[in-house]
C-alpha cells in the first residue's frame, strides 16, 4: 500500500525526473511499436495467406523467436552497434535509438506470430470470396489488415506490453544513463540495486497504471468494434 501512496505522491507532485523517465519509456516503446507494426503486421499476414515452400518453417521460427530472452536481443544489438561492431560508425549505442532498435527486434516476432494466427483464422473465412473476387497479393494483405484491425489490437497490445515492461535489452544497449536512456524499467532495476525497494515498487505501480490505461483504451475500442460486428 505504501508503494501506491508513494506512486500517487510522485505523480501528484509532478516529479520532474519521474515524468522524464516515464515519457522516455513511452516514447521509445511507442516508436518501437510503430516501426515493428509496419514490419510485423504485413509479414504475419503475408505468411498467413501465401503458400510457398518453407512457409511452415518461417511461422515456426517466428513462434520460437517470440520466446527470445530480452537479454539475448540486447546483446545482439549491442554487438551490432558497438563502436567496434559493424554498425559502430552510426554512433547509436547508449542512445534511445539503440533501445528502439532492440525493442523492434524483440517485439516484431511477437506481433508477427500473433497477427499470423489472427489472419489465418480470417483467411479461412475469406479465402474463397477473395479468390472469387480476384483479390490477391498486396491488395489482399491490406484488406486482411483492415478487416482484422480490431482483432490485431490485441497483438499490438502484446507487443507494447513486452516493450514497455522489458528491462534486459534496453539496459544493455541504452546503458541506463541518467537523463538520456533511463526508462521506467531500468530506473526500477537501479532503485532496487540501491535498496530503495519502496521507491522501486512505486515506480512499478506507475508502470502498472500506464498499462491499465492502455489496456482499457484497447478494450473500449474492441467493444465499439464488437457492437458493429467488426471484431
Amino acid at each position, binding site marked *: 500500500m505504501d508503494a501506491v501512496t508513494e506512486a500517487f505522491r510522485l505523480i501528484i507532485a509532478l516529479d520532474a525526473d519521474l515524468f522524464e523517465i516515464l515519457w522516455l519509456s513511452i516514447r521509445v516503446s511507442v516508436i518501437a511499436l510503430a516501426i515493428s507494426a509496419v514490419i510485423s503486421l504485413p509479414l504475419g499476414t503475408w505468411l498467413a495467406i501465401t503458400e510457398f515452400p518453407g512457409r511452415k518453417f518461417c511461422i515456426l521460427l517466428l513462434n520460437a523467436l517470440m520466446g527470445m530472452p530480452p537479454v539475448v536481443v540486447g546483446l545482439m544489438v549491442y554487438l551490432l552497434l558497438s563502436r567496434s561492431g559493424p554498425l559502430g560508425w552510426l554512433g547509436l549505442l547508449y542512445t534511445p535509438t539503440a533501445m528502439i532498435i532492440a525493442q523492434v527486434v524483440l517485439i516484431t516476432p511477437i506481433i508477427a506470430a500473433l497477427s499470423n494466427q489472427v489472419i489465418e483464422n480470417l483467411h479461412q473465412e475469406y479465402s474463397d470470396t477473395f479468390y472469387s473476387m480476384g483479390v490477391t497479393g498486396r491488395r489482399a494483405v491490406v484488406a486482411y489488415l483492415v478487416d482484422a484491425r480490431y482483432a490485431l489490437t490485441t497483438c499490438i497490445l502484446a507487443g507494447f506490453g513486452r516493450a514497455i515492461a522489458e528491462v534486459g535489452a534496453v539496459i544493455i544497449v541504452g546503458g541506463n544513463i541518467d537523463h538520456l536512456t533511463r526508462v521506467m524499467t531500468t530506473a526500477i532495476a537501479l532503485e532496487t540495486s540501491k535498496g530503495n525497494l519502496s521507491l522501486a515498487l512505486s515506480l512499478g505501480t506507475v508502470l502498472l497504471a500506464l498499462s491499465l490505461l492502455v489496456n482499457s483504451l484497447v478494450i473500449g475500442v474492441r467493444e465499439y468494434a464488437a457492437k*458493429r460486428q467488426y471484431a
Partner: protein
Amino acid sequence: MNTLRSANMPNPLLPIRISNLRLIKGDRAVLAGVNLMIDEPGITVFMGPNGAGKTLLLRCLHGLINPDQGQITLGDLTVADSRDQQAMVFQHPVLLRRTALQNLAFAAPGIARSEPQRLIEALESVHLADRADQPARMLSGGEQQRLALARALLSKPALLLLDEATASLDPASVQVIEALVKAQSTQGTKVILVSHDQGQARRLADDVVFISAGQAAERSPANQFFIAPQTPAAKAYLAGELLL
C-alpha cells in the same frame, strides 16, 4: 471491366465443355468422370441429392478446386483465364467488416473511383440503398446475401455461379434475388445455380442438369425434366425418395 452484354450478343464463355472430370477425396471419386456441355444461354440449375457433387462441380468451374483429371473449357478459355469474367455467390455470404457500401467499393475499386453512383444503383437493385452506411455484418441473413449478389454483379460477369444462395433465407429476399438473377440472365449473363429447392428450379431453370453419384446423369430442358425425367435416379429424386 466488361462491356454491357445483351441477350443477342454471343456469351464469350459459352459453350462450357466439361470432359471426363474426376476428383478424388480420400479413396472416393467424388466426381467420377463428369461429361457435360452447356451451350445455351439462360439459367442452368444443377440438381441432385446431397453429396452428389453439385457444389464440387460448381467450384471446379470457378477454379476453387483443381480436379485430379479431366478438362474444362469456357468458350476458348481455360478456367484460370475466364475467372475475371466469372462471379460466384456462396451459400454463406462472406462480407467484409465494413459498411455495405464499402463492401461494394472494395469489390470494384475502379467503379468506386470513376462511377460511384453505380454502387448506389447496385444497392438499390437489391433494395439496400437505405442500408448503405450500416456495418454489413449487422444486416440480416437475407440482406447479406442480397448484398453479396449485388457485389458479384458489379463486374458484369459473363458467368454467374450461385451455390444454394437462397437456402434458408426469408421469402422476400429469395424473391429479390430470383428476380435479379433472372433479369441478369436476360441481359446475357449465363447463370448456373445449385439448388435443392424444386420450386425455385421450376421458377428459374431453362434447363436442368441432374447430378448423381459424381456424374452428370441427365441434362434436359426444364419443362421436360420436371414432367418426364429420363433417369430412374432423377425420377426418384423428384419424388423425394432419393436421399443419397
